[in-house]
């Protein structure tokens, strides 16, 4: 299986996805922004269609349009402070509206289906270069902004008191989210992309550890989810995105079960004493 060039490309991109998505996802989940991941993954489909229509690279199109939508969410927070869900509905309407209009116009230069469901056959070398550049810049930005991002998620007012430029970093953060999504859509697909952002983090949170360990475990769970999803979907001849989402849910359930068993075992042992 690994002799095929397309599979090698898919594997390389998957490694980038499994590192980048939980790095971004942990901040989205901890800020109760999981659904922003879902909204922006739909925005990325609109970006893909714009890219395909204008003869540009669809991943680049997705990155630019998703960044704009991310900035729009942050901007609209000024107007709908207590209605974050409403902001997401607005941006989702805009994104899906653009995507459906473009697709139904019949003027796309290629089929957008592979971006919806994810495909390992369509990863080109140019995509890989794009994925590599976006991933490296994003990870470096995350390392550089690590403390600021933790404090904005943990205690925004304390971050402000320490001189963190919260609004500016929020805009940068949405560009990073856009980057993670653009990197992932080729393999995972738009429809289940938010699962790659949120589920490995949800699984790692069950371990009840500190931030650094939770982040490392999120990456490990993400690697397990994507690799299992990729290999099994290859043999089952199904879309990797959908199957990766199923694996993610299965791993989460296993960890929940193991946690429950561990708690029961502890109680049983203390009863024995």
């Amino acid at each position, binding site marked *: 299986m690994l002799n095929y060039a397309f599979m090698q490309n898919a594997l390389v991109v998957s490694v980038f996805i499994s590192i980048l998505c939980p790095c971004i996802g942990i901040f989205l989940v901890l800020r109760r922004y999981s659904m922003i991941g879902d909204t922006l993954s739909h925005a990325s489909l609109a970006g893909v269609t714009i890219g395909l229509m204008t003869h540009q690279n669809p991943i680049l199109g997705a990155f630019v349009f998703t960044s704009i939508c991310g900035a729009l969410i942050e901007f609209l927070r000024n107007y709908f402070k207590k209605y974050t869900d409403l902001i997401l509905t607005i941006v989702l309407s805009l994104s899906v509206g653009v995507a459906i209009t473009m697709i139904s116009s019949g003027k796309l230069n290629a089929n957008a289906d592979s971006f919806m469901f994810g495909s390992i056959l369509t990863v080109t070398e140019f995509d890989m270069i794009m994925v590599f550049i976006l991933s490296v810049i994003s990870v470096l930005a995350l390392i550089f902004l690590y*403390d600021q991002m933790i404090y904005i998620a*943990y205690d925004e007012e304390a971050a*402000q008191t*320490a001189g963190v430029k919260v609004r500016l970093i929020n805009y940068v953060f949405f560009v990073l989210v856009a980057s993670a999504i653009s990197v992932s859509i080729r393999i995972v697909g738009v429809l289940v992309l938010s699962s790659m952002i949120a589920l490995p983090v949800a699984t790692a*949170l069950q371990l009840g550890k*500190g*931030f650094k360990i939770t982040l490392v475990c999120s990456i490990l769970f993400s690697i397990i989810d994507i690799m299992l999803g990729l290999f099994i979907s290859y043999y089952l001849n199904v879309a990797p995105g959908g199957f990766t989402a199923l694996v993610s849910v299965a791993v989460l359930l296993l960890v929940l079960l193991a946690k429950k068993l561990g708690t029961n075992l502890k109680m049983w042992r203390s009863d024995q004493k």
Partner: protein
Amino acid sequence: MIQVENLSFSYTGSPPYVLNNVTFRIEDGTYVSVVGENGCGKSTLIRLILKFLKPTGGAIVSDAKRIGYVPQNNDFSNSSFPITVFEALNSYRRLLKLKSKDVIAQVLENVGMSGRENVLVGSLSGGQYQKILIARALMGRPDLLILDEPSTGVDRNSQQEIYGILKRNNTKDGVTIISVEHNLDAAIANSTLIYHLRDGRGHLCTPQHYIDEFLHLGGKEHA
């Protein structure tokens, strides 16, 4: 020194004002408790001093170089945040650009929480968590410490410890303290001055003067 001049604030930008033409001055090294009924603008006042909000009118002039802030400890959304005491303090240390990690051990010792570095903040009691928030606020060696109801959600013993920490840092290190208080006993026992807010206006007075006012009102005033 903090000079508040004709300060007015409204969340809508127009009347009614939460704070209406408020003027006072706090000298360095003073421990001021801000008291008043619920909704009278106590928290708004400190949020204006912290520059979280912009005044609708008037100005606040402060020569404090380093400000520490202890938020109200009733936001339980943070209790599930996966972060240890060390991680929370260490990230904050780096935000303040403090080079030495020793400062973490120092502030934890200052609040009597040494040895708790590896505990998750979510597993701490209300009193312990409040001490960690105070430790964090003390990390940059602030000349002004602002607290929003420091005894909320804290048992009586921990309250005594917390006010002991505040009093010690005020008298020994000369840290100016502005504390929004619903705990009138603590305000009277610990403060140098009390800022009494009522109907959007306020005045500074001594604790004894405040007790006299309180009795004059027939004990109806409550924070």
